[in-house]
C-alpha cells in the first residue's frame, strides 16, 4: 500500500513521455492544422504575388519595348546600315531599362547584329525557340509587330527576353530585361511568409500546450482523486469549477465518491454492530454459563450414583456445557482480536518448556515427537503461545497422521516452530484458506471437529506477537505448519503497560 503513491508518480512521469499521451497528440494535431493552413495560405499568396509582380514588370517592359521599337523603326531607313542600327539600338535600350539587339541584313548582304551593349546582351543569349518564333511570318496579320517573349536564366540571374520583327522583312529586335529586382522582392516575400508560417506553428504549439493543460489538469486531478479514493480516503472530493464537460465529470466523481462513502460507512456500521452483537452476546452468555458450570462438578460427581437412565443425560449436559464454555471463550477471543483490544502479556520463558507443558497438559507427550532444545528463551505471551501450539498440534493430530513431529529452532531474531504430520497433506485448493474462519477442508466433517476458528485464532495470536504462521505441504508427504515469532516483541508500544519494557522496569516503575 505504501509503495503505491510512488509507483503512481513514476507511472505518471513515464506517461508524460509516451507517444500516445494526450498532450502530445493535441500538440501534433494543432501543429499539423497550423502547418497545413499556413503553408497553403502562404503558397497561394506567394504564387498570386509572384504572378502579379512578374506580369506587371514584364508588361511594362514589353509595352515600353514595343513603343520604343515602333518609334525608332520609323526613323530607320528601308535598308539600314549597321551603324544606323547600332544607333537605333542605343536609342531603344539603355543600361537602366533593358538591353537591345537589332538584327538585319546589311545592304551588302552580310548579317549585322547591333547590340546596345555588346558585353551584356548578344544574339547568342536569345534562345533558339524565341528566334524561331520571331522569324516565323504571320500570314493573316495587320501592321502590328508580333512580340514574343520568354523568361530565361543567365548565369543564375532571371531575365525576360523578348523579340519582334520590325515590318515585314525588316530588322529583328530583341530585348533583355533583368528580373533581379522582382526576384529579390519575391524572395523577401517568401522569407516573410516562411517566418509567418513558423510563427503560426509555434503559436499553434503553445495554444495546444495551453489547451492540453486546461484539459489535462482537471483530468490529472481526477486521476489523483481516484487514486486517493482507491487508497481508502473516501472523503476525497474534487472542487467543481465551471459548467463544462470536465466540471460535469468532477461532479459525477464527487457524487460517486459520496455514494461510495455512504455505502462503506453503512457497511462498516453494520459490521461493527454485528461484531458488537457477537461481543455482547458472548458476554451475556457467560453469566448463565458461569452458574451452570459452577454446578457441573456436582452433577458429574453424582452421575455415578444416579439412575442408569439419567446418568448419560447428566454426563451429556456436563460435557456439552464444557464445550459451550470453550466456544464462548473462543468467540470472545475472536471479538477481542476484531476490536483490536487483545493485549500481549509478555514474560520471558523457555520456549521448549512451554511447548512441553502445553503437550503435557493435554496428554500429547506420547503421540508427538518433540525436538526442542531447552534454554531457548523468548519474550512472549505464554498463554497465547499455548493457544497457538494447542491448535497446531491438535490440528495435526486430528487431521494429519501420526507421527506428529514438532521442531523448535532459533533463526536469527526469530524462533521457528514447525509442526509436521504424516497425513495426506492439504489439497492445493484448500491451502490458501486453512486460516480462514469457519473454513473446513471437508464440508461433510461434523461440527465435533472443532469450532472452525482454531487455526484462525492461532494465526491472530502469532500476528499480535509480530510473527506469522504458514501452512505448506512437505515434499515427503503430510502438512507442515510453521510458526515464526520474534524472540522479543517490537518495542514500539508505549500504550501497553504489560509491554516488553515491563521486565526492565526496575525501581518500582509499575506504580
Amino acid at each position, binding site marked *: 500500500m505504501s509503495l503505491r503513491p510512488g509507483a503512481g508518480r513514476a507511472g505518471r512521469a513515464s506517461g508524460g513521455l509516451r507517444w500516445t499521451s494526450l498532450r502530445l497528440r493535441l500538440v501534433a494535431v494543432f501543429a499539423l492544422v497550423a502547418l497545413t493552413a499556413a503553408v497553403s495560405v502562404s503558397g497561394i499568396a506567394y504564387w498570386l504575388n509572384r504572378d502579379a509582380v512578374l506580369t506587371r514588370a514584364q508588361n511594362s517592359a514589353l509595352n515600353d519595348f514595343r513603343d520604343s521599337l515602333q518609334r525608332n523603326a520609323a526613323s530607320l531607313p528601308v535598308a539600314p546600315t549597321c551603324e544606323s542600327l547600332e544607333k537605333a539600338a542605343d536609342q531603344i535600350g539603355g543600361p537602366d531599362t533593358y538591353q537591345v539587339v537589332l538584327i538585319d541584313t546589311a545592304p551588302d548582304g552580310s548579317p549585322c547584329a547591333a547590340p546596345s551593349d555588346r558585353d551584356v546582351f548578344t544574339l547568342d543569349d536569345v534562345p533558339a525557340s524565341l528566334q524561331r518564333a520571331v522569324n516565323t511570318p504571320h500570314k493573316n496579320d495587320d501592321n502590328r509587330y508580333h512580340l514574343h517573349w520568354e523568361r530565361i536564366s543567365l548565369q543564375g540571374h532571371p531575365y525576360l527576353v523578348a523579340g519582334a520583327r520590325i515590318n515585314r522583312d525588316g530588322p529583328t529586335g530583341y530585348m533583355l530585361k533583368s528580373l533581379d529586382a522582382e526576384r529579390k522582392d519575391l524572395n523577401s516575400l517568401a522569407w516573410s511568409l516562411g517566418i509567418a508560417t513558423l510563427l503560426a506553428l509555434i503559436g499553434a504549439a503553445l495554444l495546444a500546450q495551453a489547451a492540453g493543460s486546461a484539459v489535462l489538469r482537471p483530468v490529472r486531478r481526477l486521476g489523483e482523486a481516484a487514486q486517493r479514493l482507491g487508497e481508502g480516503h473516501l472523503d476525497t472530493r474534487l472542487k467543481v469549477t465551471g459548467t463544462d464537460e470536465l466540471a460535469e465529470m468532477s461532479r459525477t466523481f464527487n457524487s460517486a465518491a459520496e455514494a461510495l462513502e455512504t455505502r462503506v460507512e453503512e457497511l462498516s456500521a453494520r459490521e461493527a454492530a454485528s461484531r458488537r452483537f457477537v461481543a455482547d452476546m458472548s458476554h451475556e452468555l457467560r*453469566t448463565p454459563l458461569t452458574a451452570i458450570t*459452577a454446578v457441573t462438578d456436582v452433577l458429574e460427581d453424582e452421575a455415578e450414583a444416579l439412575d442408569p437412565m439419567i446418568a448419560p443425560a447428566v454426563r451429556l449436559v456436563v460435557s456439552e456445557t464444557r464445550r459451550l464454555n470453550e466456544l464462548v471463550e473462543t468467540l470472545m477471543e475472536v471479538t*477481542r482480536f476484531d476490536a483490536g483490544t487483545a493485549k500481549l502479556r509478555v514474560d*520471558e520463558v523457555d520456549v521448549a518448556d512451554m511447548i512441553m507443558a*502445553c503437550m503435557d497438559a493435554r496428554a500429547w507427550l506420547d503421540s508427538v515427537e518433540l525436538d526442542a532444545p531447552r534454554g531457548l528463551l523468548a519474550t512472549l505471551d505464554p498463554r497465547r503461545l499455548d493457544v497457538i501450539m494447542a491448535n497446531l498440534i491438535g490440528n495435526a493430530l486430528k487431521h494429519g497422521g501420526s507421527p506428529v513431529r514438532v521442531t523448535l529452532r532459533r533463526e536469527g531474531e526469530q524462533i521457528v516452530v514447525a509442526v509436521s504430520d504424516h497425513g495426506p497433506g492439504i489439497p492445493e485448493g484448500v491451502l490458501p484458506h486453512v486460516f480462514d474462519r469457519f473454513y473446513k477442508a471437508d464440508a461433510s466433517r461434523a461440527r465435533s471437529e472443532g469450532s472452525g476458528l482454531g487455526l484462525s485464532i492461532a494465526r491472530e495470536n502469532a500476528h499480535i506477537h509480530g510473527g506469522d504462521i504458514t501452512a505448506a505441504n512437505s515434499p515427503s508427504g503430510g502438512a507442515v505448519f510453521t510458526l515464526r515469532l520474534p524472540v522479543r516483541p517490537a518495542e514500539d508500544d508505549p500504550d501497553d503497560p504489560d509491554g516488553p519494557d515491563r521486565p526492565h522496569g*526496575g525501581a*518500582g516503575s*509499575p506504580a
Partner: protein
Amino acid sequence: MCGVPFLLLIEDDDAIRTGLELGLSRQGHRVVAAATGEDGLRLLKEQRPDLIVLDVMLPGIDGFEVCRRIRRTDQLPIILLTARSDDIDVVVGLESGADDYVIKPVQPRVLDARIRAVLRRGERDSTDSAAFGPIVIDRNAMTVTKDGQDLQLTPTELRLLLELSRRPGQALSRQQLLRLVWEHDYLGDSRLVDACVQRLRAKIEDVPSSPTLIRTVRGVGYRLDTPQ
C-alpha cells in the same frame, strides 16, 4: 484456619451465587454468601471468614472498592472473580490488594485449587528466622517486623517474601515465583507477581520507588538482597 475452610462469597448474580455456593460446599468448604459489597463487608465483620471470593462487577460499591476497604484492616486472602484475563480489571484488582483471580465461568474444582493454594500460604513451614537490614522474618511465628514494628502482610505477600528470603541474592523468575507462591501451572499470569512485589515493597522498603531489598533483575525476575 484449621478444619473446614470458611469462605465469604460476594456475587450479585443469584444463579452464579447459588451455583458457586453449591459447588464450593460440595468441595468441602463452608460458604456464606452476600449479594452486595455492603452486605459482604458486614458479614466479614460478623463472621470472620478465612477467605473472600469477590466478584468485580457489583452494584453499589464495586469489587475493587470492597477489596481496598478490606485491606485497610484485614490481611485475609481475596480471590477475584473477573470476566476476562486481559482486562484492566485484573490489574486494578491486583493493585487493590487481591491475592489471585479466576476467570468466569470457573469450574469449582479450579476455584477450590486456588483457594487451597492461597490458604496454604498462611501455614508455617520452618522455625528459623532471618534478617535483611531492618526487616526480620520470623518463620516460626509467621511474622515480619521492620525496626521492631510488626508489618501487616497478607499470606501471599508473606509467602512471596519467604520464598525470596529462602534464596537471598538469587534471582527468581516470575514463572518460578508463580509456581512457588501461587501454585499456578505453566500459564500463570506474571502480573500477579508484579502486583504483589509492588505491594510488598510499599510495606517493607524505606522508599518503595527505589527498592533496596527486593530488586528487579532485568529480563529474569526478582531478588532479595541484604542492604549494604
